[in-house]
């Protein structure tokens, strides 16, 4: 499958995003566009504003100024929420419920039939987790269940906050394969990580945040690499 070109119609359009916590500017004048069907790494040291940016894109928080458009939908609107998946630090799944019970509940919130649960678990190869309580899962299993939650409604934009944190090598590889599959299926993925090597050969682009400012925004990395070989 051909990697997506950077000239595609932008799916995500961020314009001069700024976010303050009190008087502290966590993000300053961040602008970028992402096309459909690309995987972009979001890098930067602790406190650079990566999680804040993902919160704004997911609609969990509002920008102090600036705008975010997902297609024609404003971030935070019901339409944008229906098209966005967000993998947070926490699983957003209740530990006293089984994976199926959690996902069935979320399926109802997204107006989906219960069959969506099996499909999402199959996408993450997590069918064996269905009857297990979330509180009893290992970190890697929980991450799989959380990713299944994100994929329930087949979002156009998938936001991942440190998806590889605390995972062993095998689980990291499994997750990398899953992300490549989703990207190839046309999903736009923005993944923050402290370890850029984990997205090497996988990411089509890189964004680097530093002290709330976007220092670098480069797309078309995979197509450039493919051209070299």
């Amino acid at each position, binding site marked *: 499958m051909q990697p997506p070109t950077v000239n595609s119609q932008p799916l995500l359009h961020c314009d001069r995003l700024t976010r303050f916590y009190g008087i502290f500017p966590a993000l300053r004048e961040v602008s970028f566009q992402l096309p459909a069907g690309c995987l972009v790494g979001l890098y930067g040291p602790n406190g650079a504003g990566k999680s804040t940016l993902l919160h704004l894109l*997911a*609609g*969990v*928080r*509002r920008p102090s100024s600036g705008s975010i458009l997902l297609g024609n939908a404003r971030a935070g609107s*019901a*339409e944008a*929420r*229906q098209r*966005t998946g*967000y993998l*947070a630090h*926490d*699983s*957003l*799944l*209740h*530990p*006293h*419920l089984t994976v199926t*019970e959690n996902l069935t*509940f*979320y399926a*109802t*919130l*997204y*107006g989906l039939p219960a069959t969506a649960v099996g499909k999402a678990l199959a996408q993450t190869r997590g069918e064996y987790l269905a009857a297990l309580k*979330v509180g009893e899962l290992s970190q890697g299993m929980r991450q799989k269940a959380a990713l299944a*939650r994100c994929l329930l409604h087949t979002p156009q934009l998938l936001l991942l906050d440190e998806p590889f944190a605390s995972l062993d090598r095998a689980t990291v590889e499994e997750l990398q394969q899953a992300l490549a599959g989703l990207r190839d299926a046309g999903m736009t993925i923005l993944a923050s990580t402290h370890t850029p090597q984990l997205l090497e050969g996988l990411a089509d682009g890189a964004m680097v945040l530093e002290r709330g400012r976007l220092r670098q925004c480069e797309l078309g990395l995979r197509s450039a690499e493919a051209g070299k070989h």
Partner: protein
Amino acid sequence: MADFRIAWATLTRDVRLELRTRESFNAMLFYALLVVVIFSFAFESEAELTARVGGGLLWVAFLFAGLVALDRAFVREMPGDTLTGLLLSPAPRAALMAGKFVSSFVLMLTIEAVLLPLFAVLFNVSSEVHWGGIVLTVVLGTWALAVTGTYFSAMSIHTRHRALLLPLLLLPVAIPAIISMVQATQVFLSRSGVANYWWKLLFGFDVVFTALGLLLADVVLDVD
């Protein structure tokens, strides 16, 4: 119909969580029993005395127990940060809030169903009192507390002194409902007629605060 499904899913999930953990139920039952039993030691169990103070006493027990359930309404969403999960979804906030209202209501009514017969026995309540009137008052009063309490529980969830803030916010607002529920119960315990006036007041309170709670659900559930 979609909103109803969301409210129903929220309600059944909360009930399932409570059945599995019994976090609220045990604490509520303990508080309620404590109040009723201690007062039964303090007062002679005479029908005449019960007719005079029983209404207030019963609602003190219900209110204490209810505060536990109301506090847990949104604390239940803290493990795994499931509140963020709810708010990330496109589900209408009013539907989520309606599910929470009903789950608090069901939990409070369950405890009250256990407590009411015990109260009747410990305080020697006459079998000739109008039990139908008392039950209707309990239902209307519990809905008033469930709606206002759940709303303020959502409002105080991100504050540091949540457990203290909830009664401070709830009780002043709920005063008209508390007066009505105590007075109506008193009317039936003392067999001094019907409580139409207090019922109308309670019903009006229920309608107004349910509508306000649903209309303002977007504002109160906004985490930012």
